[in-house]
């Protein structure tokens, strides 16, 4: 059951001129959230912007006793709402509704977890990496960004024993190019008998390429999709994505309630 909180901003840390991490005091949401779930955040009071925006829960914040105290979102300044969020000051309040949507299915050993993130699509993998680490799952993060300065939280993942495979579009860090290239090579080199679960989040072009790569090597893949979303609760039918059902016919599926985590091989990519 989703909870709506007028959450106090307890921190707003810029990571670059576009990216930042916004910390919100929302203990009830934080306590209930599972990796891959999202919150709907109203960036400003009043009617402009009118609607909330969906954000993956990035981190769960805990108090000294270890109890959930809040959550963070990883946001990139793109439009009106994200610009308002970028400028939020400590002590301000933002309405935050969640947790919403279907989370990732977390694998167990000996299956390995390979996470594939593009840009702000890193967001759902912090909590997923923690869940995987707690289960003792060997994990790898394939993480692509435009430039090296936009690869964030690397030490966070290293501390969870996540192997990092980095790419940048300008070659300023990691491998030059897109993140799917090293993913493809690693999958090609991997024995088909050793199980791997792929998890992907990022721009739709990257998700489609990851989905094709997963199919090529016969690997299961869970993608967290981001579509323009009106309500987050299944009311408005804005965030649909075409998916094949078990009979092969294609239907527009609401990514807010059927997803945001969806089986990649069922999605009909443009």
């Amino acid at each position: 059951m989703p909870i709506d909180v007028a959450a106090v901003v307890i921190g707003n840390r810029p990571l670059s001129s576009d990216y930042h991490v916004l910390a919100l005091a929302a203990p009830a949401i934080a306590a209930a959230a599972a990796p891959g779930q999202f919150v709907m955040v109203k960036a400003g009071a009043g009617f402009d912007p009118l609607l909330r925006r969906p954000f993956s829960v990035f981190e769960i914040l805990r108090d000294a006793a270890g109890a959930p105290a809040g959550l963070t979102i990883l946001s990139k300044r793109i439009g009106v709402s994200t610009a308002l969020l970028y400028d939020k000051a400590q002590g301000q309040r933002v309405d935050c509704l969640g947790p919403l949507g279907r989370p990732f299915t977390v694998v167990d050993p000996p299956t390995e977890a390979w996470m594939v993130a593009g840009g702000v699509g890193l967001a759902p993998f912090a909590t997923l990496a923690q869940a995987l680490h707690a289960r003792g799952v060997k994990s790898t993060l394939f993480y692509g960004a435009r430039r090296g300065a936009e690869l964030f939280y690397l030490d966070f993942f290293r501390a969870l024993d996540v192997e990092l495979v980095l790419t940048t579009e300008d070659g300023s860090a990691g491998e030059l190019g897109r993140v799917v290239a090293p993913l493809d090579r690693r999958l090609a080199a991997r024995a088909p008998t050793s199980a791997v679960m792929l998890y992907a989040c990022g721009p739709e072009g990257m998700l489609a390429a990851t989905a094709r790569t997963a199919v090529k090597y016969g690997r299961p893949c869970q993608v967290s999709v981001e579509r323009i979303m009106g309500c987050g609760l299944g009311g408005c039918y804005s965030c649909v994505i075409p998916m094949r059902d078990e009979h092969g016919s294609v239907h527009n599926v609401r990514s807010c309630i059927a997803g945001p985590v969806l089986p990649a091989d069922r999605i009909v990519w443009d």
Partner: protein
Amino acid sequence: MDLSVRIGNLTLKNPLIAASGCFGYGVEYADVVDLSSLGAIVSKGLFLEAREGHPAPRIVETPAGMLNAIGLQGIGVRRFIDEKLPELRARGATVMVNVCGTTLDEYVEVSRILSDAEGVAALELNISCPNIKEGGIQFGCSLNGTFDVVNAVRKVTTLPIIPKLTPNVTDVASFARASEEAGADAVSLVNTFLAMVIDVETRRPKISNVVGGLSGPAIRPIAVRMVYECRQTVSIPILGMGGIASARDALEFLIAGATAVQVGTANFSDPFIWATLLDGIGDYLQRHNVARVVDLVGTVDTRTKDKEWISS
């Protein structure tokens, strides 16, 4: 304090109704809202068969508003009856169903099927969706078409019939009158205003259907005016809507002449809005010493009283 209102032979416990297309099939909101606390909910529009609607992107925000072109995606009337209605009944919701058709016969058939189902309180006839090519708004933009749909459905149901009118006509009141003459129990207005948003960088429309319907606070004053005009023209109840986001907004519609109000877009940003609206209306009635909410309906005072007021 009496918040109940009557729509045809149907009594609603209060005048707040969740608008069609903004509340899924109602079951989606069961975890968030006590569905039985609402006057009624109106389902998403239903045809005989399932429809997939338009490709994404389907919405875009505008100042104090949003455009949508969903394209009436829906599961079809029979699946609604089998899969959604039992839960709505169990939760004590008063269910109005938004009836769609590409032909006159389809409106009649969908209405007939719903009339035999248990737990349908009223039929809202969707003759006003701006986002589909066939049927729908073609009937709603023609006085004869409006009359014919209402008249034909009237012959197959005893449920209250509530045509939902489009504001995309010159004189919406004449469509309310045609509805009344054809036997409608009430009218809903307004549906969305046909609108367009263009990305100037790419010179592409921002939604896949090119044009869509504008809703939200941006349209409220126009909708209030249209409700007021219809109140002067027909005697059947009006279900008023268009950008309601607060109790004051809802009261404005009631005072303009709506017997009940529908809330749509505001529910997207605040799914908990219903209790706020209900409390606000109750407070107002108390403060103004009005015993029954129906005593507010159509009480706008347009007399000129004061020359100073006119000239200022």
